[in-house]
């Protein structure tokens, strides 16, 4: 009887040595003539413990981590294959508090299943959502998604059901489902984890979306730097096709749904949905104006549902367990769960899926265990490079779309990047403008010229004499207002958020000569 060992094939784990760990286990097992079956799972998202090796024992999966190849001999010696004690032993995986306290709905299978195995997927509740959807008419599916309260997890938080209904109501000979998998926000990796760790859930979600709006074709627009996700998705699509879950006749329903992965163009702006559509059409990734909404005139001019990976991956459980099940999580108008990605200067970076409502402080302190440097937290950027910098005084803000809007911020795709007190916020503000300047598509004037001028003005503020400070700051604030009000898309329209929040909350960093005290 072979012993099953899980070694993640998640890109994060691989970058920490998971491949060497897996081969070391295989060769050590062979040397010792032990029958070991290695399964390459996704990551549990506890990145400070990666590579996290799990062994299946009669009492469940026992975790060891972070494991390096050189630990393997000792682990065998410690009989880790039977849950033996070792310095790296973490006990039952499910009992690790970081994991145990989470509410994993979307990530229910990530790190648990073999991402290449459709059988494993089904064994863990996969495709029950599709089965339910196949028994419904399109409008009922859309209604379920609407009732669940699911909002777009890519960042804009637009109600998914409304988007789907718009597309359903548009009449056309062809409609499309497009998955925005061009995950590019700093400190975010939820999309990648799903695609690498549970690709079938995305495929199932897109298939349900296709049934819901009458689309027969879907595209996954995948970040070019995600080769592991590409392989995982393509393998999963091939198995789904082979077993009748994709193709001309999905599950014998007579309805077609086909799926293709398209590698993205390598530009942040191509994660903006209209640029994404342009890029997917083979054109230069340049923002389109709206309206027309993509749901009415999207890919190749046809009605198109375009959703983020997490949004689409949240659909199967809604269809499986019902809208109410999902809606019962969360607070206010933020329903369900949000997979939050902790990153930056933290002791325990990783993925935390929780219902909306816990506070930023809980995330940083309870999950993150404070800064990796051990210095005090000074600022937290939530929602990617365009998110506001949140000062310590606002850490009690709950994870809720409206609460974040209330403090001039946004949740975005759920990325949380923590800075300690050595951070120079003028540098961070400059970086926001510079990021915008580098990534701007160049179409609209406020973003194209404004971001470059923004960098220059911040440089002048920092370098300049004190007397000019007020004039420069007024200009910077005017510029931010022009970009906020005038930009065509969210890149130029939100790049001022980190700048203004840095100016508002950390004015002392912009005093020119004076460097931040802690440095």
């Amino acid at each position: 009887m072979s012993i099953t060992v899980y070694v993640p094939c998640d890109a994060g784990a691989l970058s920490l040595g998971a491949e060497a760990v897996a081969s070391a286990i295989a060769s050590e097992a062979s040397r010792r003539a032990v029958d070991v079956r290695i399964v390459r799972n996704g990551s549990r998202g506890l990145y400070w413990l990666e590579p996290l090796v799990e062994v299946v024992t009669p009492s469940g999966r026992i975790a060891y981590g972070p494991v390096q190849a050189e630990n393997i001999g000792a682990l065998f010696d410690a009989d880790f294959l039977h849950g033996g004690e070792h310095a790296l032993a973490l006990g039952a995986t499910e009992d690790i508090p970081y994991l145990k306290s989470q509410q994993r709905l979307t990530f229910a299978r990530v790190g648990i299943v073999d991402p290449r195995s459709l059988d494993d997927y089904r064994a863990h509740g996969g495709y029950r959502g599709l089965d339910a959807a196949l028994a419904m008419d399109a409008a009922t599916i859309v209604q379920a998604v609407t009732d669940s309260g699911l909002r777009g997890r890519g960042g804009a938080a637009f109600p998914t059901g409304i988007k789907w209904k718009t597309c359903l109501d548009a009449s056309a000979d062809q409609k499309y489902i497009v998955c925005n998998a061009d995950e590019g926000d700093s400190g975010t990796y939820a999309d990648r984890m799903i695609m690498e760790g549970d690709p079938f859930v995305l495929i199932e979600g897109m298939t349900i979306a296709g049934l819901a709006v009458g689309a027969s074709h879907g595209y996954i627009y995948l970040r070019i730097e995600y080769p592991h996700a590409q392989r995982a998705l393509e393998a999963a699509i091939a198995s789904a096709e082979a077993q009748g879950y994709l193709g001309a006749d999905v599950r014998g329903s007579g309805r077609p749904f086909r799926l293709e992965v398209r590698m993205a163009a390598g530009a942040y702006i191509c994660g903006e949905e209209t640029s994404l559509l342009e890029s997917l059409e083979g054109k230069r990734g340049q923002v389109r104006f709206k309206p027309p909404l993509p749901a009415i005139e999207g890919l190749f001019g046809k009605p198109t549902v375009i959703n983020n990976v997490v949004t689409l991956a949240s659909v199967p459980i809604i269809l499986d367990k019902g809208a109410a099940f999902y809606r019962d999580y969360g607070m206010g108008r933020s329903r369900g769960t949000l997979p939050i990605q902790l990153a930056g200067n933290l002791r325990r970076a990783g993925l935390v899926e929780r219902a909306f409502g816990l506070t930023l402080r809980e995330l940083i302190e309870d999950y993150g265990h404070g800064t990796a440097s051990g210095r005090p937290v000074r600022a937290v950027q939530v929602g990617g490079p365009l998110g506001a910098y949140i000062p310590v005084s606002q850490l009690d803000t709950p994870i809720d779309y409206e609460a974040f809007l209330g403090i001039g911020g946004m949740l975005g795709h759920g990325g949380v990047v923590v800075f300690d007190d050595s951070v120079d916020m003028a540098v961070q503000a400059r970086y926001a403008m510079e990021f915008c300047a580098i990534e701007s598509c160049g179409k609209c004037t406020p973003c194209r010229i404004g971001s470059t001028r923004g960098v220059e003005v911040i440089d002048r503020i920092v370098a300049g004499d004190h007397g000019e400070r007020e004039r420069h700051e007024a200009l910077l604030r005017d510029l931010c207002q022009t970009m906020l009000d005038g930009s065509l898309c969210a890149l130029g329209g939100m790049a001022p958020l980190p700048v203004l929040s840095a100016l508002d909350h950390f004015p002392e960093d912009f005093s020119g000569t004076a460097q931040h005290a802690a440095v």
Partner: protein
Amino acid sequence: MLSIVEIDYGTPKVASSTTVELMIDGQSIRVPAGTSVMRAAAQAGISIPRLCASEMLDAFGSCRLCLVEIEGRKGYPASCTTPVTTGMKVSTQTPRLANLRRGVMELYISDHPLDCLTCPANGHCELQDMAGVVGLREVRYGYDGANHVYAKQPDGSANPLFVAKDASNPYFTFDPSKCIACSRCVRACDEVQGTFALTIQGRGFESKVAASQDNRFLDSECVSCGACVQACPTATLSENTLIDKGQAEHSVVTTCAYCGVGCSFRAEMKGEDIVRMVPNKDGHANHGHSCVKGRFAIGYASHPDRINTPMIRAKISDPWQVVSWDEAFAHVASEFKRIQSTYGKQAIGGITSSRCTNEETYLVQKLVRAAFGNNNVDTCARVCHSPTGYGLKATLGESAGTQDFDSIEQTDVVLVIGANPTDAHPVFGSQMKQRLRAGAKLIVIDPRRIDLVRTPHIKADYHLKLKPGTNVAVLDTLAHVIVSEGLVDESFVASRCEPEAFAKWKAFVAQEKYSPEAMEAQTGVPASLVRGAARLYATGGNGAIYYGLGVTEHAQGSTAVMAIANLAMATGNIGREGVGVNPLRGQNNVQGSCDMGSFPHEFPGYRHVGDDATRALFEQDWGVPLLGEPGLRIPNMFEAALDGSFLGLYVEGEDIAQSDPDTQHVTAALSAMECIVVQDLFLNETAKYAHVFLPGSSFLEKDGTFTNAERRISRVRKVMAPTAGYADWEITQKLAQAMGYPMDYAHASEIMDEIARLTPTFHGVSFDRIDQLGSIQWPCNEDHPEGTPVMHVDEFVRGKGRFMLTEYVPTSEKVNAEHPLILTTGRILSQYNVGAQTRRTANVMWHDEDRLEIHPHDAEERGISDGDWAGIRSRAGDTVLRALISERMQPGVVYTTFHFPGSGANVITTENSDWATNCPEYKVTAVQVTRVSQRSDWQKRFHAFSEEQQELLDQAQSADSPGRA
């Protein structure tokens, strides 16, 4: 830069039957549904600031100046991209918007040179206007930040963002330092012209306009149509003439004198000097677009080669002698009278041209019929579209295309046969490409892979690459498929066509010999392609056929035209928008010159001279008896000249020595005549054989009308005085008077009044009426007071449509061991016809010699490499051209253009012609091609003769100089 007089409404006009009412700045406005807020405001006289919008282009939403506030909506929507909705309340001016716009302008100007006073756009610059409108007073960013303006950075190092001016194009200059990256040029190239030569390269602040792969404009895919120049809101893309001369002070609407599209232009003038030609947005044929010829190639009108004084000589070996106009007229009259008294009344005649105005052509035929007293008048349409006149008259009842150009907007299947619109009719070619990009299907029937077969975002669904000379066979096989597969529109045929003729035709084309399979060996077109194309045309929705000289210039030209009409009738593709039979006319006034009675057998309006009632009408009006027998066609004139019975010829605006086939035969005929009078701008090839030269006027120097391929009569307006003193119609009139026939028109409009009086299809036409409507498509009369965009709507002009039998008879011009290749001829975008105009412009930078295009296989067999001298020999003659190896050709077929007289393309072409109309078979000549090392004997003789004639001209001009007078 936009025209100095047009109003731009910011976004394209929307056609919608429903209207929407909204409030803009408290004003209630009603506009068609789908209209943008910007356009709605503009229609109400409310001007919203903007830079990236133009009504020639789809809304883009990039400049962010046109933002407005809309009650109940978040933020500041762009008025260009926001469609109106019922009850919408829009504010275009609020303090917040003012700040926002000033903020955007401040950014723009922070990256723009401050040289307004010396800038070519000064006074008509949209950026300058917007800076004024938003009240920009300060650029707080300063000017030492990142920029595209200065070659060097403050520290003296090179500015990596700076790009120097590109003056490679002869007509316009690209100055990237003034670019505001609005993409209007890129969008104009994409959306309007359809060439996709321009792009925005890089992103963010580094975004810049680039031609092709960042090439110089001249080296790029740019076709120099000028749409980008017109679209540019600043001086980034400026006409060189504008840079040289400054802003125009007035503008005159006139009509292009190049191809049969008949684009309307605004000649922007400083006094009598043209600053630039801007296509007229209100032009019904071109909607504000143009090509490299019409917009830019007008320099010939002021070229030093223009001859500005009348000249005479006794023999063509004599030097020219400058004379006064009166002497010239007296001399011509005396010579023509002498010839007629010696050799008979029929011994003289006249040739008019498709380049003349309607009024001029009308007068020439009137001169011949009334003053010469015979019907020996013909026109160069003889050698291009005479089969169209014959074929369409026989089948449909009218010698004209059935549609307007805009009809193509409703077309689902475009069938192009023997036409190359992107080169020869570029502005309509662009409109066709717009429709094809919007989803219409395309069938191309052409021996060559013309651009349309594969061009950006367009790919022909079927390219039937037939062998030259097999048009009728291919058309008959298409008909065979339609009939045998039951694709005939039976109800249309039953109600609209003659049943007996249809039944005969049906049985005729159903014969097995016309099956695509049976014909495959002859046509070279795989049967499956023919079947597919036939099904697509017959069943793909609105099918429209566009054809050109590749149909008419054949031994069976008239047959092919009838076969085309048969196809349209059989499939019900005639009599409404989106369908029809559309001859693309080569020259500006082919349609008009035919309409005006310039053929020997027809009075104006296609009425036979033998028709007593018509003749009586003209006899009464003109006050002289008229002959009821048709006169000589051009080829008959040549034969008669060689026979010694036709010895005096008046040629206005036509260069038969270059354009007619079998040049050596033509020049022999010309040499045999005693008095050839040439009226032209230049000493053209025919004039080298002339005894009298009468200096003509360019289209800029006279009033009149041209009629384009869609029967559209448009005004030609005088913008400057004739360099030689007279408009061409005045010269003809003086000549008539000298011959003793009274003509006394004070203005060209009086000639049109006479045409209208005597021609039923023109009864409603007058210069005043054209001024009111912009242009008029004939028939325009009591039944159609505003003209007729689509003909044959409820019934055919002849009543019932008549199917004609179109037996395929292979041309006698056959390949054999001695002449194994087929030569076919055509045109190129930058040159026009015999090149008299375009060769005298900078267009020669794109095409400065005619080349022989040959398939690599044929070239290889003959040891010919690209650029080698290739000798081309037919049974008519031989010439030498440099070879251009091209996979556009099919093996066995070679091709050349005929824009340069020294090329001798027509030395090769033969006397073969259309059985019905004598239209020459230019498109099929059996030839052999060999590698040679020197020019042909003919070319050597030609050059010697040309030099000698130039010498004789130079002698006259130096004799005329004041020092020698």
